[in-house]
């Protein structure tokens, strides 16, 4: 169990001399709290697996340091790091029984027999694998195999952190939810630092108390699911998280007003010192814009279609050339193709070159 610090950590598969833009992981510094449940969220190729492999020691970083509880372990081999990792596809040792699979890491480390048996029994109980201990591991279902992979990680009592690399990819949808709850329960029971890599926002938001969103080799925001939803610090977080994603439209912002396609929207805060020459955009989640009957003073939009998600309906509209999504209030019937948009000023954010700008009150 440990706190993990990353200090100016960066990696490039092409070597240290490569151009900064080609780095799979651009320099980052951050701290992973002991006992935290983290999710690393981002699209394929954003560097999240690279970051995970750097922490587990499968990949040695081009630059920077990794500290476990303040001790520099950057050059330490994977074996010596006390990291557990669960891979995308279940890794089990074919010739061994479930029990032997679980005992394998302890046997390799020369732990005494009695202790091995006790630990294996305990972990099997935690993971509901006790009835299968004597069975050959190859004969089990993918979710049971994935549990064995996890069990091999946490069977060591001194494990510093458990890393998951998209562990639910091969699991049936109805079992995914069950396995995820199991992970949460384990996290509470064992007080382990867990880092969970995924490109599925539902998985990330339900598993983690801190979600780290990565984009193009950078960490663009890390925060609670609520923070990511309410106040995305980067336009990427805005449209990657949430379904549908945040509306992000080019705008002219001056003081407490944003001008979109000639219409003025009120803002809650004053934006007087926007960086000169930056690309200014306004971002607002579809949940905080609603369609209404066209009226003077409302931003007018053309409705293209309505998505009925069951609990909630979203209208896909068009403002000039810009696509936009907005909530359809309950009981509201769409009179025509034309509609007005009502904004919640407190929820409208301003972005300069994709980064959130804090306005002044």
């Amino acid at each position: 169990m440990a706190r993990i610090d990353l200090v100016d950590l960066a990696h490039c598969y092409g070597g240290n001399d490569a151009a900064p833009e080609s780095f799979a992981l651009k320099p980052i510094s951050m701290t992973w709290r002991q006992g935290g449940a983290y999710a690393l969220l981002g699209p394929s190729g954003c560097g999240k697996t690279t970051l995970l492999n750097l922490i587990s020691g499968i990949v040695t970083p081009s630059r920077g340091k990794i500290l476990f509880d303040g001790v520099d372990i950057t050059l330490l081999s994977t074996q010596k790091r006390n990291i557990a990792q669960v891979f995308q596809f279940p890794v089990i040792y074919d010739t061994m029984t479930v029990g032997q699979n679980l005992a394998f890491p302890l046997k390799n480390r020369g732990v005494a027999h009695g202790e091995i048996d006790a630990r294996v029994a305990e972990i099997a109980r935690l993971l509901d694998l006790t009835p299968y201990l004597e069975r050959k591991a190859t004969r089990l279902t993918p979710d049971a195999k994935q549990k064995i992979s996890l069990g091999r990680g946490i069977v060591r009592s001194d494990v510093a952190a458990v890393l998951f690399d998209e562990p639910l990819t091969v699991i049936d949808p109805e079992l995914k939810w069950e396995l995820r709850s199991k992970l949460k329960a384990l996290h509470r029971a064992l007080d382990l630092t867990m880092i969970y890599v995924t490109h599925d926002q539902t998985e990330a938001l339900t598993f983690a108390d801190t979600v780290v969103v990565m984009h193009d080799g950078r960490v663009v925001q890390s925060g609670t699911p609520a923070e990511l939803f309410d106040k995305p610090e980067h336009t990427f977080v805005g449209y990657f998280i949430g379904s549908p994603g945040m509306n992000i439209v080019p705008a002219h912002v001056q003081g407490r007003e944003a001008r979109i396609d000639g219409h003025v929207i009120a803002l809650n805060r004053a934006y007087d010192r926007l960086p000169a020459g930056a690309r200014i955009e306004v971002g607002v989640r579809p949940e905080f814009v609603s369609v209404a009957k066209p009226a003077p003073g409302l931003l007018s939009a053309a409705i293209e279609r309505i998505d009925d998600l069951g609990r909630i309906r979203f209208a896909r509209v068009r403002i000039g050339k810009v696509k936009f999504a907005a909530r359809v209030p309950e009981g509201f019937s769409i009179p025509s193709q034309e509609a007005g948009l009502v904004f919640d000023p407190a929820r409208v954010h301003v972005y300069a070159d994709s980064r959130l700008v804090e306005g002044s009150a």
Partner: protein
Amino acid sequence: MDKTVNQKAWLLVLPVFLIVAFSAILPLMTVVNYSMQDTFGNNQFFWNGVGWFKELLDPSTDLGSRFFASLWRNLFFSAVILAIEVPLGIVVALSMPREGWRVAACLVMMALPLLIPWNVVGTIWQIFGRPDIGLLGYVLNSLGINYNYVSNEFDAWATVIVMDVWHWTSLVALLCYAGLKSIPDAYYQAAQIDGASRWAVFKAIQLPKMNRVLLIAVLLRFMDSFMIYTEPFVVTGGGPGNSTTFVSIELVKIALGQFDLGKAAALSLVYNLIVLIVCWVFYTVMTNVGTDRQANQGAA
């Protein structure tokens, strides 16, 4: 609805049937025919029933003793080359590079012995081992080792075995290499995290993942070495004495050397039967391993 009876399909099968008849069934029947008869030349044949088979399977007769001697010799030869080639092939496969231009270089070099015709392999080693002009024979004798595969039984065996190992270990290695390449990286990474030693990785991951290709390798090498003829015939001619006379060499001696067609035909059939039985056993074992695995996946 009634099925239409369509006899046209027979026409499509007929060409294949004719080809197989002329290439396999008729020659085999000729052999069966010979095995039941005796001849003293002049194309005159006399009925002998199962006489040749009785003689062949009775070690107290000349024919029987020669057959069994060559059979045990051949089985011993197969056992020795398997015991060398399989572990050696695994070791070679394990030490082959995983990526980069070296892979291609290695594969080409390893494939070379496999591409040389049997006769040429025999000739290469026949010359290579000669004490007067062969590099190997000359060097060994200059070092004070009395090596002569023509007169010394042990030297003859050693030459034939080393030649087979040289010729065929690549096949085992290439098959193992293919098996190793199919193991996903995650297995090695997981083993690293689990603190597995090199030996534990081999035992827990590599060997189990190679077991199917290894079965194929063992089958191929056993069948090939059990039917070996050309290479030892070119090098030692089955000698000194009969010490490297394997079953097919004995067969040719009887058929073409003594022109005992009946005896040779009986031996051929028994030889063929042994090969078929061993093939069938291997095939059954292999498909059972396969279905076992499929059943697992079905359960999973």
